[in-house]
């Protein structure tokens, strides 16, 4: 029973007092930023990265993971109560959840979301524990050519499922890959694109890019938009426990959402966002005669997507932990965090740092438990937070981001670079270029180059090595198929429709 032994090791690590404290801190902070619209997990994790220099790797990653899934919880709370999804993954929750709140059933909606998420989180944790070891073993069979092809598949997958224009998204990836080329060449030691600036020979820090584009870029974009009117249901949250009918209606949706979310989370580019959309569509198809119609406050429309997004958030750790390949921007930051702590992400993490690996997995279950215990009673406090105006919030974000970038190398060069990327982030926003693929490309760029060059070296310059090795060929074909399928007229139409609903 390797699985049990491993999980035992994990729980031993995660139940250590320090790790519990960081899991708690992470989940609370995650919920907080999930509740506050205009501050996402990407910016928050980027903001906290400098602080993990002083932490051990395990508590640091436990805390960052807590922020990620905590944000999913917090996001659904605001979606239900004020029809403002704090996170993009809770956009669909707002449809039926807010209607339930308007009918005085906010408590039941919050409970369905919370309990559904908890169930999904438990299942997600078990899935990671069960599937990570075999995937890791598969990954050890990979050579350079396979790794390169896998990264191509990962990057293509990430944009095929993302919203917006496909060509632009691919361009953003390539731009990210190029920004990752500003460094010292690993093989020859030549400084590239550094313009004789010594700070640039170490490469651009990804914290600088993440904070500039996601942190500051978002602030500028938010400030440029007219203020929104919010209607908050603070007084009517009572009768928290759902009725028996609610349970009967909700549990099949929770099961379906969990299953769907677990599968979609593993896919590159998947994760929480896609999972919740797919689940809502599925619920509308499967539930023929809901007690309350969809769009008018059907509990299935809350329970399904909420379970799905939490399951997806959990299982998106699988490619990151086993292959070292991040499926979304948050995971890209986790990979960066590992590198900061001197851990090379990839299949060897499980054997070289078993405490970290299993401790992180176990902490997710504990964190989910904390969330459900914390959140249901504390909903009142979270709602109060919503009344904090943005004009107090954004200077605080500016200050924390600035201190964070400065303390990276105790050098103000990084601060100036961040200012540049803030400008770039706003340009991307104005030109509707999605920045998440850029971050993925940037993280994977150096790894991709190294594997490409090594593969070519081994094959004596023969490019066909990528197609003659069966595993590598399979991965590349899968990537090509993904693009072709998305280009097909009927699917293209559907895809655009789906993202229009989102907007």
């Amino acid at each position, binding site marked *: 029973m390797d699985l049990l032994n491993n999980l035992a090791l994990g729980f031993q690590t995660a139940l250590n007092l320090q790790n519990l404290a960081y899991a708690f801190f992470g989940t609370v902070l995650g919920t907080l930023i999930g509740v506050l619209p205009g501050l996402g997990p990407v910016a928050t994790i980027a903001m906290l990265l*400098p*602080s993990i220099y*002083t932490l051990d790797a395990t508590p640091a990653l436990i805390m960052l993971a807590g922020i990620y899934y905590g944000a999913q919880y917090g996001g659904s709370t605001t979606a239900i109560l004020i029809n403002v999804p704090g996170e993009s993954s809770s956009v669909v929750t707002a449809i039926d959840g807010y209607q339930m709140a308007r009918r005085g059933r906010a408590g039941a909606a919050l409970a369905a979301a919370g309990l559904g998420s908890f169930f999904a989180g438990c299942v997600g944790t078990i899935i990671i524990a069960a599937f990570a070891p075999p995937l890791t073993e598969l990954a050890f069979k990979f050579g350079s050519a396979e790794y390169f092809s896998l990264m191509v598949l990962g990057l293509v997958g990430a944009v095929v499922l993302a919203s917006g*224009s496909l*060509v*632009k998204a*691919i*361009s953003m990836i*390539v*731009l990210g*890959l*190029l920004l990752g*080329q500003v460094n010292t*060449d690993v*093989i*020859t030691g*030549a400084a*590239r*694109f550094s313009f004789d600036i010594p700070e640039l020979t170490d490469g651009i820090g990804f914290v600088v890019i993440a904070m500039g584009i996601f942190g*500051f870029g978002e*602030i*500028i*974009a938010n*400030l*440029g938009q007219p*203020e929104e009117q919010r209607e908050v249901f603070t007084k009517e949250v009572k009768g928290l426990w759902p009725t028996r009918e609610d349970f009967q209606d909700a549990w099949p949706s929770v099961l379906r959402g969990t299953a769907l979310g677990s599968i979609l989370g593993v896919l590159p580019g998947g994760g929480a966002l896609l999972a919740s959309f797919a689940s809502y569509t599925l619920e509308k198809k499967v539930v023929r005669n809901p007690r309350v119609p969809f769009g008018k406050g059907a509990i299935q429309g809350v329970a399904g997507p909420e379970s799905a997004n939490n399951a997806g958030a959990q299982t998106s750790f699988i490619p990151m932990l086993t292959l070292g390949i991040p499926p979304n921007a948050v995971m890209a930051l986790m990979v960066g965090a590992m590198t900061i702590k001197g851990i090379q992400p990839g299949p060897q993490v499980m054997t070289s740092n078993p405490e970290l690996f299993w401790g992180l997995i176990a902490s997710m279950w504990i964190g989910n438990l904390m969330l459900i215990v914390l959140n249901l009673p504390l909903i009142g406090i979270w709602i109060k937070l919503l009344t904090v105006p*943005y*004009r*107090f919030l*954004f*200077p*605080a974000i*500016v*200050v*924390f981001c*600035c*201190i964070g970038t*400065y*303390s990276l190398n*105790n050098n*103000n060069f990084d*601060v*100036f670079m*961040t*200012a540049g990327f*803030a*400008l770039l982030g*706003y*340009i991307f926003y*104005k*030109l*509707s270029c999605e920045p998440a693929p850029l971050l993925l490309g940037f993280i994977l760029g150096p790894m991709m180059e190294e594997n*490409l*060059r090594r593969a*070519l*070296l081994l094959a*004596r*310059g*023969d*490019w066909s090595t990528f197609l003659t090795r069966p595993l590598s060929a399979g991965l590349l074909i899968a990537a090509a198929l993904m693009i072709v399928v998305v280009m097909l007229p009927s699917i293209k139409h559907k895809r655009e429709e789906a993202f229009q609903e989102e907007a």
Partner: protein
Amino acid sequence: MKIKSQRDFWSGLMFLAIGVAFAWGATDYSFGSSARPGPAYFPFGLGILLALLGGLVLFKALTLESEGGDPIGAIAWRPLLIIILAITVFGLALPRLGLSCTLPLTIVLSTLAGREFHWRGVLVSCVLLTVGSWALFIVGLKLTIPLWPIYFTG
């Protein structure tokens, strides 16, 4: 020729320019051969690829009809310039003036980027954030950030 989508037109141009710049810059380094790829091999290929993709976006922006021309819309100059100024001032001031003076400066500046500005609220934020950052970053996380202006401590 008429631009059918403003946003795509400018993004295409941006990708094209950056791609060409990177590919051109890469010619300074040794290209190697495909059997022994040099430092320029990967960035040169990527630069060309980005330029091609940019060209494709540009082509689409000039040929495919989009809703209402897809305009870029008003640029939020005020928040944009003030936030960037605030970051730059922070970077310049921190090594010289220390955390105690730099933070209030940054907070006052960045608050100006918003719509409302009330001195009382700003002062409260300044005190709270400065003391909080000192407690969190210097006392708690033990980061080596100067606290007072170097002119005081000599």
